Structures are given as structure tokens and as C-alpha cells.
């Protein structure tokens, strides 16, 4: 959405302090792969599968719908699809710290109409640990395979669904070709060692404004990403964050970049 239209309609939208630093919602498809620079993800789209309509914008609760692909037969029946999502742990409505927690929550929340095909377990894909859950729905004949891994304090999740087991097998096999490698800042929940700040002033519109920030080795805010905010809120918060100074985060005896989250506006849940 253009900034002009956003201002005219005064709607919430994601925004960032700069256009160079990658943000999670900016993936793209090219040459048969879905690429997402924020997650350092390159996902090979299974052969014959096509990109489906994009999902909603990032949510106030840190949920991203990144991409969806499907295998559709000549009779226009959908054989299988994969939904790529991410849940930011800093802004989750329920307490979770790793992908394993998310898969466990899905397992706990399964309604009786579903039949488990196995308890959650771990698999290794492209050298990374994925937490896997599979279940089926006998009446509709649909099957689900959920594969979730930890990236930058997010659960990055691939949900494969369909009635065609062979297509699901092929899609799961194709995941062996994904890569998730590259440099990223450390992520730390609630790193709030602020030594200097100016609080932003903006109109209360009863919305939650989740903000991810990257703090550089000198303690300045190098980058800020607002998942959801009204334009005037975004402007006020970004302006204020430029004045903030943190105590530099140290790891291994030296100052390092760190990524953390903060919430402005309406809280998401009671404090831990």
C-alpha cells in the first residue's frame, strides 16, 4: 500500500526505519524458489506447484503468513498445498520460546475430529532441527504435516496439507533442498537495558504496536520494524527510537548486535 493511501485512509500497516534491512514480510518468488532475506531462507517450490494468493499483513500478535503454494490438477482440484508462516516469540499471545513450544501447542489444541499419525518428533532438514507433527482428518481425507524450526526468535513453520499423500511426500522430500544459512543478529527477549530514551507521544487508538529493533554494538537502534501501526504512531515511535541508547549487548566478552522486541500501545497480555 502506498504511503499516501495509507495516510489518507489512516490504516494500520507494517513500517520500518529503513528500506535496506530485510523484514520478514518481504519474501519473493523467483527461479522456482521462495526467498526471504530476513530468515536467510531459500525454499525450493516443489515441481508443478504454483504460488497462491498472498496472506494478510503481519498481525499485532506477531504472526506472519509468508507464502502459499499449491499443486492443482487439470480438473482444478487442489491436491496439496503448503503454507509458510512465522510466529514471532516476542509478541505471541501465549508464552512460547521455541518452535517446539509452538508444535506442542498445536498438538494440544487438536480437536477430536483429527487423528494423530504420530507424536511430535524431530527431523533434520538442511542441517537444522525441525519439529514435526502429522495428523489426518478421516472424514475429509486431508492430512497435515507440520514442520517448524527456530530462526531469529521466530517459529518458521511449513504446513503441508492435502488429500494426496504422494504429493505430500514429494513436497516434504523437496524441503531437503531448502537452505537457512546466513548471518543474523543474536535475538534476546525483553532486552531492555536502556540508558537514555524519549518516550514517543502518539494518539491512543487501542491497538497494539509490536516493534522489533536491532541494537548495534554502540547501543544505538540500528533498525526498527513496526509490525502494525497507524502512520502517525509509526512516525512518532521511529522518531523517538532514534534517541534511544542501550547498554551494548555483550557476548563472548565483546559487544555484539542484538535483536529484541518491544510493545507500544495496548499490551498483548499480562506481564510475565
Amino acid at each position: 500500500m502506498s504511503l499516501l493511501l495509507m495516510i489518507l485512509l489512516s490504516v494500520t500497516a507494517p513500517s520500518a526505519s529503513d528500506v535496506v534491512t530485510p523484514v520478514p514480510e518481504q519474501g519473493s518468488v523467483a527461479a522456482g524458489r521462495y526467498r526471504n532475506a530476513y530468515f536467510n531462507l531459500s525454499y525450493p517450490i516443489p515441481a508443478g506447484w504454483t504460488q497462491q494468493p498472498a496472506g494478510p499483513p503481519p498481525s499485532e500478535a506477531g504472526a506472519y503468513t509468508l507464502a502459499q503454494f499449491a499443486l492443482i490438477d487439470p480438473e482444478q482440484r487442489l491436491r496439496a498445498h503448503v503454507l509458510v508462516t512465522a510466529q514471532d516469540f516476542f509478541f505471541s499471545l501465549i508464552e512460547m520460546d521455541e518452535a517446539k513450544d509452538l508444535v506442542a501447542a498445536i498438538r494440544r489444541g487438536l480437536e477430536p475430529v483429527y487423528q494423530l499419525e504420530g507424536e511430535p518428533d524431530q527431523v533434520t532438514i538442511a542441517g537444522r532441527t525441525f519439529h514435526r507433527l502429522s495428523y489426518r482428518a478421516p472424514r475429509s481425507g486431508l492430512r497435515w504435516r507440520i514442520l517448524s524450526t527456530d530462526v531469529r526468535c521466530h517459529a518458521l513453520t511449513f504446513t503441508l496439507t492435502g488429500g494426496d499423500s504422494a504429493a505430500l511426500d514429494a513436497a516434504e522430500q523437496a524441503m531437503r533442498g531448502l537452505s537457512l544459512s546466513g548471518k543474523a543478529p543474536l535475538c534476546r527477549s525483553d532486552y531492555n537495558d536502556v540508558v537514555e530514551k524519549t518516550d514517543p507521544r502518539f494518539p491512543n487508538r487501542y491497538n497494539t504496536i509490536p516493534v522489533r529493533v536491532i541494537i548495534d554494538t554502540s547501543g544505538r537502534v540500528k533498525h526498527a520494524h513496526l509490525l502494525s501501526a497507524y502512520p502517525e504512531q509509526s512516525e512518532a515511535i521511529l522518531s523517538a527510537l532514534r534517541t534511544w541508547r542501550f547498554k551494548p549487548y555483550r557476548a563472548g566478552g565483546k559487544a555484539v548486535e542484538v535483536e529484541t522486541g518491544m510493545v507500544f500501545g495496548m499490551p498483548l497480555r499480562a506481564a510475565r
Partner: protein
Amino acid sequence: MKLRSVPIVALSTFLVVVQAFSQVDPGPRGGPANAGGPLSSVAGNNDPPTILDFFTAGQDAFTEVSSVKGNFPGAPDDGLGPRFNGLSCVECHAQPTVGGSSPAVNPQIAAASAAGATNVIPSFITINGPVREARFRYIPDAAGNPQLNNPDGSVHPLYTIAGRVDQEGCTAAVISQPNFTAAQANNNIIFRIPTPVFGAGLIENIDEETLLAYRASLTGNTLGITPNFNRNGNDGTISRFGWKAQNKSLELFAGEAYNVEMGVSNELSPQERPAGLEAKTNGLPAPCKINKTPEDHTNFNEPPVDTISDVAKFAMFMRLLKPPVQQVSGPNTVGIVAGEGIFVEIGCAKCHKVAFTTGPSNITTSLSNAEVKLFSDLAVHFMGSGLADNIQQGTAQGTQFRTAPLWGLGQRLFFLHDGRATNLMDAITAHSSPGSEANAVIANYTALTLANKQNLIYYLRSL
């Protein structure tokens, strides 16, 4: 041309073949209305005493026709206009009975010329189409062109009282209908149809904590569903009535509708309502401000049940109106039972949450700690560019809509916020478009066999 008989066997074979390739919406369920009437604890008029009298008085007010001064034959309520969409509550909330949604014959056709009114019927209002209110995306200038730096979103009532025998000085020389032709030509118009109000008191009495806990339980869902709530701008609490959940309570819902849809000022909306450019400049022309305001008000000299205003009566009627009852019977029973499982399995029930439980009620037993099978989470969701109306109401944005409660769906004629769909297959697939939270669920629907799709339709028509 001479008609030839077709052998029944051949015809039934043809139907089987057709059904093998596509599912069919059997259409609105026939028979008696499975909704309407008072809640069970209200019917005895003793929980508490006289409560049924309030329900009945509310229903009477809901069905009464309005005229400008209340002295037109058959239209004893005063306050109509000067701008309006309809002459009574019930003419829009009619299907399948009092309190429902848009009826088969659109009453807005007759309303255009009632009592001698000289309104032009806009092209989007048709005799067998849905009852509609119109909203403009941008305030148009005098020539009808949208001013792109001036977002609107408000209702522009279809008609004026000009030409009516009771219009007094509010003639076509001083007031005119909005320029709907230009609005359509400029893609500056969207529509809304009436929401059914059955079981509304149960919806009103669901605690915020219940809604918030359900929302939190959807964290990490594998469907891309990201619910949020529309919140009252004054106190930040969750609002829940209307297509975008923009109204906090039934009384606000009634007061706003009385003013916006019928032009009746009341204790919640005390002034007569100008529209569009009129509202931003000089307001209504003086000759069109005919009655003292508020036209609807507390009646101090009436017996108790009639002391309260029409708006309070409407709200109490809706509050005490019993919910629709599902009907699992007939030749499609097996399909209905199967469809119920499909509804949950493919993820419809994540947003169309089957049931909540109300909190304790201080009004009547039936509203207290009661199961509410409304099929909605009462949250607003991003529904994509295909359904977007680009109207912002409260914190609900242009592509966000409240999950429409599905109870009573079996006897409805028109679907989605603007009534664009007249069969359930179209209504379901319209949930998918770029930016929609429902895309993965609709992908699951698309993956179903035809038989399972058909069972899902049977189930929905049982509600």
C-alpha cells in the same frame, strides 16, 4: 410449442450426472422459520415479571411503519427522514421472520414512492435483489466526483421525503438524492445488507475474557488466521455488532440504525442526520428539519412498558429474541452429519467458532451461562482485496470484517456484507483473494471431493 414429457428415469439420471460434477446449494430451507419469538425464560412473562410485555412492545415497535409526522395512515410512528433507506425495521429484517435479514421482495422499491415520494430508484436496488444501504468511499463534490483527499465511509441514504404528502416544506427544490449514478461510475460506492438479529442478547452477554482467551488459543494456528477485535474508541472495550463489529451494544446498534436507516433522531443520535457533503458544509436545509428533536424519546406519561423509547424497545426486542435452531432432518440428514465434521476439519470453525458460553445475566435466565451456537469468534479478520470495501469503522479497516455468525444461514437468501452471493458455493470461494486470512481454509475446501463439498453445503443449510 408442444411440451414433451421427459421420462423420470432419464431426468434423474441427468441430475445424478450433474451432481457428480458440481455441488448444489439446495437453497433456503423451507417450512416454518427456525428463529424468532422470545427466549424460553421470557415466554412465561415471569422471569422477571412483565418481561414478555417488554418483548412484545419491542416487537410491535420493530414492525411499526414510520411517516414524517406520524399521522399518515398505516404509519403511526413519527420522525421518518428527511433521508432514509426504509420505513420500518422489519421491512429489512424480515427473512425468514421478524428479526431476520433481507427478504425475497425488496421493500425499498415500494418505499421509493410511498406516500407520494418522488425518488428515483438507484440501479443497484432491484425487486428481487437484497435490501441495501450505500456508503461512499470518498465524499463526492457537487458534481458527484470523489474527492480523493476526503475519505468518507458513511451511509448515504437512498431516498428523501420530497414529494411525500407529509413532507411539509422539504421539497425536491431543497433536498435531493445522492448522485448514485456518478458514485457507481467512479467506483465510489459499496453496499451493506441487513444483519440478522436473532439471538443478539446472547451475543451481547459473552464476556470479553472469553473472546480474548479464544483468540489467544489460535496462536500458532496452521492456517494463517490472525484475529483481532474492533474496539470502542472511548473505552477500548471489544465491540461486536454490525458487519465490522463497530457497535458495542444493541442499544447503540438500534439508535444508530434508527437515525441512519430511517432518519429518526433519538436519545442516542439526537440530531437529524445530514449526509455526505451536506454534513461537512451547511447541514440539512431548514425546511427539512420538521419535527422537534429527538423525535424518538422517553415517554414520561405512558404506562411502564411504553415509557421507554423506541430505541430501548428495539434493543430489548433483539436482546430477548431467541436464536435460530439447527434442523437436522430430511433426505440430507446423512450429509448434514458428515458436513459438520468437514466444517471443523478444513478449518472453517477456527473463525466461525461454533459456540461460546455467556456470562451471568442480570436480565433473564436464558441469557445466563448459556451456550451460544453463533458460529463466530466476533473478531475482525483481513478478508482480502476481493471482499474489501475500503471502509474503516472503528479499528476495523477496509479489508477487515467481523466473522459473520452463521446461525440461521439455512434460511437466508443473500450472503456476504453486500449481498453479492445468492448461493453458498460463491459465498465460500469469495473468502479467498490476495490478503485474506481465509486463503488456506479455502485451499482445504478446494481439496475436498465433490461429495464432501456437498455435505458441507448441506450442513450449512441446516443451520
